């Protein structure tokens, strides 16, 4: 989230698209209801009439996978009706930037597509540079090659009738949504867009998110209170696990994991440190060398020296895509020997589960660390297989629960909150920290004793977390924050700061690229300072009344509660909305008041030191037109891989960058319904954490699928009947919930039914049932590889046995 949960109360219009906060983030409604009490509007856009929809002022039905059409139509509506926040768009986005002459778009295809490789040449989309090698700009935004004009042209095709034919939305509902939300383009109004997996789980998921961001930039809704682009994240610490780089392409703090051709630290820094010649651009990623060097110092301590590139060569280099689905694919081919699952359950949680379960059987060894038996840890005795045929060695380690250990987690609003151990772990269970610590120490000892393949990255790894039975979590937290490795004097404007060796680094602007600081994750610098553990703070004061609670826990970056907040003020530093100022420039005291500003510099208009607000981009301006997306600078509507219709907007059916797997089918004779998966309030994720809790099992005891009354009539299915749902991947049994809340979609005049289902069930635990993911395809987003769980084709029949 650019903003945070309590900030929802500051909204004039809340658009929930591709998320269902009433059911999946129920406590968010405490703040959504407060916004509604203050006259705000709630808009729910969803394939189903959900509990969120039941509280909404406006509900619009949308066919799964057509979000770009829906949002593109709103972008067009805002542009056509001049509802955009013009000053914001002109000053803070790249609307005025000129694009080079090569860029072109026709019939669903951007220029420079390589049909063999299924890739675009991203260089062909570059800005047109002017004098001093800087992008040319036209502040009037009238140049036909300006981003603004190209944007207008691109989205002019998204007229309301075309959009509604694609999305299946009723025109009057669509117009009501567009009108209500685009009304927040006024400087004194705030609109927020909430989204979750309905947006990301798509072959064009990243472009869905971009469509959200585009609309918010056009309406001037980023950086302000009650605004933002707000991903409602699904797990208690999926924010933290992403922050710490538990993804193949990342290192902690969203530093990129090195690629094969980043041959040394210099090469890495050259590749991943963006440059700008514009003095007004803060270009924060320009600090990349400081952050990677500090991380390497934290990992390799005294072994990491300037001479040996701070042990950069110890880091593995990637060559290609190792995303989840690719790993399962390789596993299925027998190319992996071992897998460790820390609280993850790939037998239920990923697409095409039957394949994933088979793949687990190709492993030589599997370690699961969990509170429960999961479908993954007992995959070898799952229904329908003979355990004797499966040669995988399985270690099932009992993990401590959240109340049995101490440490921090980061919520969706980036608040990092400290938890305490209430009791000892049950039985022989141990904390994950302890287990990881043991893995590392024992592997280290083996390499120290016996040697092996390139042992130095392990034997020299700095790993000092106390002498106790449990590693000291405070020592880990202190390392993450970062410390000085030697005595330092830093001059910061008029202040001279003295630091001793071992002092905690107070904030990331003091991290260094010469080895004088060590810090595990730069964005968490400031979380554990010489003043103590900031994440454990419990001061519930709210001086601004906006709900920032600056002294409750700590949030990255630098305890800034609303990021991009320099965009909440005009170039002179005055809040666009004086009633809800996030920050404001005090010209007399020469400083910002309110939230922690996005950088200390004076307002943008300050000739000497002023900076643009979008500090993470080298051009400092929000990208209406993107330069680094694999599938185009603008979002463009494509059909999901399995779709009941041809693309009504162009002749390009699917995202051209996405490679299609064999087991997908758009044969409507076989699979006439749209299938979609989701979560329910009463269960969570792959279900291990909830399907064994009797109070939750009481509420939702069975796997079920939801269907419309018309489909039920057509198939002779009554509420509670057993049904079979099939796709090209497999079939499942479930109970049918027949409801008027699901309606068929009008797709270009043809009525297409939908089958909705939770994905929480499996064969382990107290309440068992078939897994929704048996049905879903292994095909992912062009940019992130997140699978298309939300839109596939299926059939449904009464009774029947699963195949």
């Amino acid at each position, binding site marked *: 989230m650019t903003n945070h949960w309590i900030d929802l109360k500051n909204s004039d219009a809340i658009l929930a698209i591709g998320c269902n906060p009433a059911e999946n983030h129920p406590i*968010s409604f*405490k703040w959504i209801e407060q916004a509604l009490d203050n006259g705000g509007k709630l808009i729910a856009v969803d394939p189903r009439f959900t509990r969120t929809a039941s509280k909404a002022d406006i509900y619009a039905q949308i066919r799964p996978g057509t979000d770009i059409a829906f949002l593109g139509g709103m972008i067009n509506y805002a542009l056509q009706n001049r509802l955009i926040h013009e000053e914001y768009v002109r000053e803070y986005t790249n609307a005025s930037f000129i694009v080079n002459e090569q860029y072109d778009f026709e019939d669903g295809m951007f220029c420079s597509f390589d049909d063999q490789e299924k890739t675009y040449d991203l260089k062909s989309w570059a800005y047109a540079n002017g004098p001093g090698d800087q992008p040319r700009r036209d502040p009037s935004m009238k140049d036909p090659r300006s981003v603004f004009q190209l944007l207008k042209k691109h989205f002019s095709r998204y007229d309301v009738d075309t959009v509604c034919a694609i999305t299946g939305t009723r025109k009057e509902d669509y117009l009501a949504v567009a009108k209500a939300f685009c009304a927040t383009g006024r400087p004194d109004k705030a609109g927020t867009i909430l989204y979750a997996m309905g947006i990301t789980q798509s072959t064009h998921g990243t472009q869905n998110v971009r469509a959200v961001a585009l609309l918010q930039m056009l309406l001037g809704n980023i950086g302000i209170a009650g605004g933002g682009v707000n991903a409602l994240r*699904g*797990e*208690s*610490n*999926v*924010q*933290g*696990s992403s922050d*710490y*780089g*538990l*993804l193949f392409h990342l290192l902690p703090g969203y530093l990129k994991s090195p690629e094969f051709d980043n041959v040394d630290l210099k090469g890495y820094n050259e590749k991943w440190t963006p440059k700008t010649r514009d003095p007004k651009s803060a270009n924060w990623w320009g600090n990349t060398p400081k952050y990677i060097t500090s991380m390497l110092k934290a990992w390799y301590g005294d072994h990491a020296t300037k001479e040996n590139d701070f042990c950069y*060569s110890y880091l*593995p280099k*990637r*060559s290609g895509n190792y*995303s*989840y689905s690719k*790993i399962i694919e390789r596993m299925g081919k027998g190319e*992996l*020997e*071992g897998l460790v699952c*820390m609280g993850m359950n790939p037998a239920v*949680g990923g697409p095409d589960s039957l394949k994933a379960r088979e793949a687990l059987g190709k492993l030589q*060894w599997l370690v699961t*660390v*969990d*509170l*429960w038996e999961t479908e993954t840890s007992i995959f070898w005795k799952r229904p329908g297989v003979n*355990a*004797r045929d499966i040669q995988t060695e399985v*270690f*099932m380690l009992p993990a401590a629960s*959240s*109340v049995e*250990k101490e440490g921090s987690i*980061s*919520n*969706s609003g980036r608040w990092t909150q400290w938890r305490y151990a209430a*009791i*000892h772990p*049950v039985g022989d269970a141990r904390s*994950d920290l302890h287990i*990881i610590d043991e893995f590392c120490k*024992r592997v280290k000892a*083996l390499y120290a004793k016996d040697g*092996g393949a*390139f042992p130095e*990255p392990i034997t020299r*790894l700095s790993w000092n977390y106390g002498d106790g039975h449990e590693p000291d979590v405070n020592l880990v937290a202190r*390392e993450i924050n970062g410390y000085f490795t030697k005595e330092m004097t830093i001059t910061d404007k008029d202040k001279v700061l003295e630091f001793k060796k071992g002092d905690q680094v107070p904030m990331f602007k003091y991290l260094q690229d010469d080895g004088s600081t060590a810090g*595990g994750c730069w964005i*968490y610098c400031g979380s554990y300072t010489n003043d103590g553990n900031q994440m454990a703070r419990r001061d519930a004061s709210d001086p601004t009344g906006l709900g920032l609670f600056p002294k409750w826990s700590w949030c990255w970056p630098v305890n800034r509660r609303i990021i991009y907040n320099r965009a909440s003020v005009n170039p002179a530093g005055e809040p666009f909305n004086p009633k809800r100022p996030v920050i404001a420039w005090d010209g007399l005291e020469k400083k910002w008041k309110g939230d922690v500003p996005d950088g200390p510099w004076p307002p943008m208009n300050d000739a000497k030191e002023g900076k643009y607000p979008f500090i993470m981009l080298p051009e400092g301006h929000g990208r209406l037109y993107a330069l680094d997306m694999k599938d185009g600078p603008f979002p463009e509507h494509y059909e999901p891989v399995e779709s009941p219709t041809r693309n009504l907007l162009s002749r390009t059916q699917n995202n051209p960058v996405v490679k299609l797997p064999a087991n997908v089918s758009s044969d409507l004779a076989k699979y006439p319904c749209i299938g979609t998966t989701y979560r329910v*309030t009463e269960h969570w994720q792959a279900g291990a*954490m909830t399907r064994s*809790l009797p*109070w*939750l099992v009481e509420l939702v005891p069975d796997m079920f699928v939801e269907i419309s009354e018309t489909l039920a009539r057509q198939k002779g299915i009554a509420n509670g009947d057993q049904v079979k749902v099939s796709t090209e991947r497999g079939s499942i049994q479930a109970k049918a919930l027949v409801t008027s809340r699901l309606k068929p979609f009008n797709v270009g005049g043809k009525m297409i039914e939908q089958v909705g289902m939770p994905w929480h069930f499996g064969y382990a635990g107290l309440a068992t049932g078939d897994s929704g993911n048996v049905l879903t395809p292994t095909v992912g987003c062009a940019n992130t590889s997140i699978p298309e769980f939300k839109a596939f084709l299926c059939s449904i029949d009464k009774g029947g046995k699963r195949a």
Partner: protein
Amino acid sequence: MGISRRQFLQGGALAAGAVLAGKPGEASVDTPDLRTRGLKSTTTICPFCSVGCGIIVHTRDGKVVNTEGDPQHPINQGSLCPKGSALFQIANNERRLQKVMYRAPGSDRFEEKSWDWALDRIAQRMKETRDRSFKAKETNKKDKKEYVVNRTDGMAFFGGAGLDNEECYLWSKFARAMGIGQLEHQARL
């Protein structure tokens, strides 16, 4: 039990008769005594979704006896959804794993093992796989040049969205030190 349920439910008279027979009924009195009074309380954050609600955990003799929303927490102000309200049953649950379990190749059952045994064997497996599958150099398909990659391709590490930050950090650090390229978790799904 001497009386069948059906007989028993036939009326107040019979019920009263049972009391007369001297069998003790379970005491059920709505008393003014707070069951959490004087107990040790600890704050925590809900382990389910990402709203980050505060929860108070009351314990007695090393057991969790009550969990409820933290009224001082600015986000939830004491509120909890059903999952958060059910936290008690995570701490008190007979289905929780309490022992290290091992399943040998081809076996049809788990057997109990000690931590030491399992951790040593896992460390051994990790090392063997790393040594076998470690790729120091690799020739790139496109430019046909050889590059140093120092990568372990024979194993993958999954998970993390349910771990604490400090655990995620050490997992990240350990994985990369092991040369793991295939490091992924729920955020990819």
